[in-house]
């Protein structure tokens, strides 16, 4: 048996593809992570209020999601409801995170791949060639990244590992000046996004995406507020194709899936083996209402061949940035934002178990902490988006590698192509190697 290993390029973090070959046949292909940091272990015994700050350091791209999921978990332990004002601030910080994360992904990962896949360019871009390829696009995407950064700075105190997020709410009562500034940023984002979305439609809507990016049978999982697009509150929903769905509250998650601490991967308790997908594509399958008229119109430009193809995620990410810039403006106009209030006091522990759920940019994120009788954290379980997607990714890359290798016998081509599939999922390896 021969093992071919290749380090993933242009993904966030350290990942490897391991291809097993036997008698000129591909046996299996796996996306693997070589490093495991063990946050679930070393957070045991830590001061509860210290955990959100530490846990932010799991990921430099999903920092706000990780910290907010952690705060929600602690609030569940104290049985505290967070006020409207604080929820609005959290939503703003999440939107800024999403805009930054999606636009960086679009520029450095998606764009070069789309150009190759659709034969718009045959070469591999160096970073320098990439910024020179379409200067107006570079500037526009950098403006979007800045929107994310600046709003995180204004309301979070720092652009990464936000300082203002604490159990009970968000420190800071925004000044008038920062609200005006933030409004300008979101308005600018909307203009840029309209332009990029229209470009994307022009270039790709009439094309048929290659079938190796088609998704095999899967079940979508996402947070939704009665079918509305909502990444902060709601309940979890499973949906298979266009059929019925199962909706459940966070405290019942263990009916459907679970995870051995210190082992990677999530086990689903379905009758048959089925792959689950989370993230923008899954949100697209589950959300029934975006609350913005333009969205269904934009979606209609694309024919059926796109709607079951993972490359469509690239378009969904653009739409999500649009939706959240729009929602950001609504939040800034909400009178509850300006209420100056003290954060609630968290002094008596009500539950020994706490669960916090959120939709991170890359999908469902669940934190589950357990306390022992002396109120010490003795068990921490983190369910991370990329872990949910892992079996689907491995299935797709294995099938495609088998077919491509049989057809061409070219292992380098296999390595190159399966990395494109992996990148289309935008895995967050930092999070997955918590």
């Amino acid at each position, binding site marked *: 048996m021969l093992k071919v290993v290749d*380090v*993933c*390029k*242009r*993904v*966030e*973090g350290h990942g490897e593809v391991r291809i097993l070959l036997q008698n000129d046949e591909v046996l299996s292909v796996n996306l693997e992570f*070589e*490093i495991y*940091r*063990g946050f679930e*272990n*070393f957070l045991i*015994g*830590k*001061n509860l*209020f*210290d955990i959100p*700050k*530490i846990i932010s*350091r799991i*990921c*430099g*791209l999903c*920092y706000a999601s990780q910290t907010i999921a952690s705060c929600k978990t602690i609030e569940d332990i104290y049985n505290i409801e967070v006020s409207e004002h604080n929820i609005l601030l959290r939503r703003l910080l999440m939107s800024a995170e999403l805009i*930054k994360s999606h636009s*960086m992904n679009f520029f*450095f990962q998606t764009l070069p791949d789309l150009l190759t896949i659709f034969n718009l360019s045959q070469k*591999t871009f*160096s*970073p*320098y060639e*990439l*910024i020179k390829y379409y200067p107006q696009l570079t500037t526009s995407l*950098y403006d979007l*990244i*800045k929107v*994310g*950064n600046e709003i995180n*700075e204004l309301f979070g*105190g*720092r*652009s*990464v*590992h936000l*300082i*203002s997020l*604490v*159990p*009970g*709410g968000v*420190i*800071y*009562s925004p000044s008038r000046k920062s609200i005006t500034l933030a409004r300008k940023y979101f308005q600018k984002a909307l203009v840029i996004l309209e332009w990029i979305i229209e470009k994307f439609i022009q270039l790709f809507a009439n094309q048929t995406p290659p079938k190796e990016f088609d998704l095999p049978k899967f079940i979508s999982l996402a947070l939704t507020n009665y079918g509305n697009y909502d990444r902060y509150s709601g309940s979890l929903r499973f949906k298979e194709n266009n059929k019925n769905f199962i909706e459940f509250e966070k405290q019942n998650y263990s009916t459907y899936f679970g995870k051995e601490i210190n082992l990677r991967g999530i086990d689903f308790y379905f009758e048959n083996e089925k792959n689950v997908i989370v993230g923008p594509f899954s949100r697209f399958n589950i959300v029934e209402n975006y609350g913005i008229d333009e969205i269904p119109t934009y979606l209609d430009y694309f024919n059926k061949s796109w709607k079951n193809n993972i490359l469509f995620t690239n378009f969904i990410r653009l739409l999500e940035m649009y939706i959240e810039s729009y929602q950001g403006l609504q939040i800034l106009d909400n009178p509850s934002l300006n209420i100056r209030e003290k*954060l*609630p*006091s*968290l*002094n008596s522990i009500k539950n020994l178990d706490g669960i916090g759920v959120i939709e991170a940019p890359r999908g469902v994120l669940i934190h589950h902490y357990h306390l022992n009788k002396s109120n010490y954290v003795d068990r921490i379980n983190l369910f991370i988006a990329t872990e949910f997607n892992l079996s689907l990714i491995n299935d797709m890359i294995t099938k495609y590698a088998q077919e491509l290798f049989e057809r061409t016998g070219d292992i380098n081509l296999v390595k190159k192509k399966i990395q494109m599939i992996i990148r289309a999922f935008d895995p967050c390896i*930092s999070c997955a190697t918590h």
Partner: protein
Amino acid sequence: MKPRFILISLTSCTGCISTLMSLDIFPQFLERTRIIYFPFISDAKDIKECEIALVEGCVSEETQIILLRKVRRHAKKVFALGTCACFGGILSLSNSKIAEPLSNYIEVDGIIPGCPPPSKLFGNSVIRLVENKDITLSEKNMCANCPIWEKMEINFQINITKINPNPEEISLNEENSECFLKKGILCLGPITRDGCEHKCIKMGLPCEGCMGPVSKDFTSNVINFLSLIELSQELKDYTGIFYRFSKPKMKR
């Protein structure tokens, strides 16, 4: 000729590199340099000769030592990017993993500290490197320019019982005129390098020391400081302070 750069991450959250990539000046950085190896955004496969290598993350695996030494051999200068690379970083909290700074294995030509490094400092430092200049860091501690200091005095008699204020006690900088240490809350400002513009303090939270020490070894600084003040027993036993961003140097 454009200076050639290598950018790699070891064990990290990728927050330092993604901060760099998100800076306004990043497209300009790409224009003014030649990227030799930068797996995050480039398909280039080989580590080759370069003027400057920026390394994010701590050393936690044997294989990284080999990689790091290879980078050192190919780079004229190596800089540690962020607190993980400079001092070990957040993984120092782990009992089972090692989390070592680059300098335990290779000679380092300079550091850009912070978790992540503050944007201004980061941007300026990177531009200086592109221009073949040295990085300059403040030699002062956080207290020197602290926005809530009225008088430079630490009252060592006060019993320090908390590492964070309770949420309801948090008050913003402008309403907050008293040093955290006077209120019994541990702030690592006295031993932490200035340069972040007092980000946490302005938010009403004490400094957790992410910029690292002004001088000497990280943990010995923390231990010296903590031995000067009255720390409650609970805090004395709490590893979340001593090993927040660094472990004492170990022999391997």
